[in-house]
């Protein structure tokens, strides 16, 4: 293991965590602005640089972009209150367990084309695993422990109900999440996310096969099962990240605040950030598998020579797509009503599960006909 590999990996790890947390912070701001736009309000638009404190005439507001900083400061300065009836160890463990899996899954998502620095090549992914999608499923399936433990250790009714709900919800939707991925992996014949994105870069995105080998009848016929798989996967991601319309674990109207009712200050903020980080990573996976990852549409801006600037442009492209998806998540949250719990379970077990299973066979038949 040479020093350059270690150094570049360390740089990538630090930069991706910083970027991820920045996006999370900005997302908490954007959520309020998007909801404000949808509900015809203004939203938080004041927190900026308080120049009037230093004798200037006006403050710099920056559209309130510094709101997340103020929020963070508030969370840290607030009293960290631990109720007497909780089980302390698990109560402290739970927030960390919701945050860490979301950060870990980011390790296998490729976020740019390979860079050549001097004589070294630097792939723009932290861990280039041959089992990328499985790794993501495995680690994200661990995030349920945080919520379950939070609900159980709080030792009170509402959090417990939230925890029980979330564990059954996440187990149910994990099935359709995994099954909807199978057709995609059958089309690519590959479990390495970097290779999957590279293939899409040259031969058309999975949902936009408009260049390279993508211009074949097979790929266009395969669009039918791919669209189904895309829809199921997206719906399941909504359920797995506990976002509206599936945010039953913290459903305010029934459960006060669900599993994090008893939490305050920074421990609550960790749950909050964990949810947003999961959303960012979920968007990243959707973009990587279905929408070409870091590649531009129509095979524009190929980077076979490993130019640093083109590579950075690809990183920018990836981030743009992810941010667009996050805004879509918010849009859904503020325009759709919440499901009832039995409806949620029926959708997961009776509809999505069966359709995903049938979709696997449909894809297999199409592939068999075209590649015979």
């Amino acid at each position, binding site marked *: 293991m040479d020093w350059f590999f270690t150094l570049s990996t360390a740089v990538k790890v630090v930069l991706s965590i910083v970027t991820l947390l920045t996006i999370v912070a900005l997302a908490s701001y954007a959520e309020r602005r998007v909801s404000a736009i949808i509900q015809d309000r203004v939203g938080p638009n004041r927190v900026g640089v308080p120049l009037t404190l230093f004798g200037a005439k006006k403050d710099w507001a920056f559209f309130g972009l510094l709101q997340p900083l103020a929020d963070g400061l508030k969370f840290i300065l607030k009293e960290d209150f631990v109720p007497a009836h909780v089980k302390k160890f698990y109560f402290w463990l739970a927030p960390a367990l919701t945050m860490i899996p979301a950060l870990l899954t980011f390790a296998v998502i490729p976020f740019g084309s390979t860079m050549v620095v001097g004589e070294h090549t630097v792939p723009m992914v932290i861990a280039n695993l*041959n089992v990328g999608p499985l790794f993501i499923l495995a680690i994200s399936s661990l995030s*349920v422990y945080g919520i379950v433990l939070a609900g159980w250790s709080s030792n009170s009714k509402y959090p*417990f109900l939230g925890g*029980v709900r979330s564990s059954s919800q996440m*187990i149910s939707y994990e099935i359709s999440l995994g099954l909807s991925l199978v057709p995609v992996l059958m089309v690519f014949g590959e479990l390495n996310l970097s290779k999957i994105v590279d293939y899409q870069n040259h031969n058309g995105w999975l949902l936009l096969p408009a260049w390279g080998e993508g211009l074949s009848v097979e790929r266009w016929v395969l669009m039918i099962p791919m669209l189904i798989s895309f829809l199921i996967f997206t719906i399941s991601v909504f359920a797995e990240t506990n976002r509206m319309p599936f945010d039953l674990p913290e459903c305010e109207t029934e459960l006060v605040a669900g599993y994090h009712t008893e939490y305050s200050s920074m421990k609550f903020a960790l749950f909050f950030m964990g949810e947003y980080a999961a959303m960012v990573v979920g968007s990243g996976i959707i973009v990587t598998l279905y929408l070409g990852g870091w590649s531009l549409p129509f095979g524009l801006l190929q980077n076979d020579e490993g130019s640093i600037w083109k590579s950075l442009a690809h990183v920018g492209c990836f981030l743009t797509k992810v941010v667009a998806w996050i805004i879509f998540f918010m849009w859904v949250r503020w325009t759709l009503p919440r499901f009832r719990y039995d409806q949620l379970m029926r959708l997961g077990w009776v509809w999505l599960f069966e359709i995903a299973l049938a979709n696997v066979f449909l894809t297999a038949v199409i592939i068999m006909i075209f590649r015979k």
Partner: protein
Amino acid sequence: MPEPLFYFFSLLTLIFGVGVVINRNPVASALCLVASFIGLAAIYVSLNAYFLGTIQVLVYAGAVMVLFLFIIMLMDIRAEERRKFNLVAVGGGMVLVIGFLAMFSSVVSGFKGGEQRLSQLPLDTTKSDVVEIGKTLFTDYTFHLQIVGVLLLVATVGVVVLSRREDRPSAPHEAP
């Protein structure tokens, strides 16, 4: 693989494995088991068996143990914690462990090939372990795979039959 990592993860697996047995709180035991599984997965990964390691986390830590925890959370944990150690059971367990260790050490010491160090096997990194496992499963062990599939199907049908509610002869809302 770096040797310190192997010892670290083996130790982790074993410590949490012991934790499963000696904890009186079922939730703590379940969590120890999860941590132990993750240590085992790390050992798989360090042997370049990424697929096995991932599946270990995905199936055991991510699905099976979540269900366990789900059931345990619905139990009365205080009653479980109040229970005292049953001396007869502990003694019986110790006898079993000692017997097993004696047998194990006698078998291992009788195996002469284990005394010399294995030469470093060349690792073929061009082959994907997923592809190789898939090929083996669907060529040499197709029949066994089908049998397991049928077994799971039978279990699923059994669960549905057992948990199905009895149809009530007259539903109350149908009354005029």
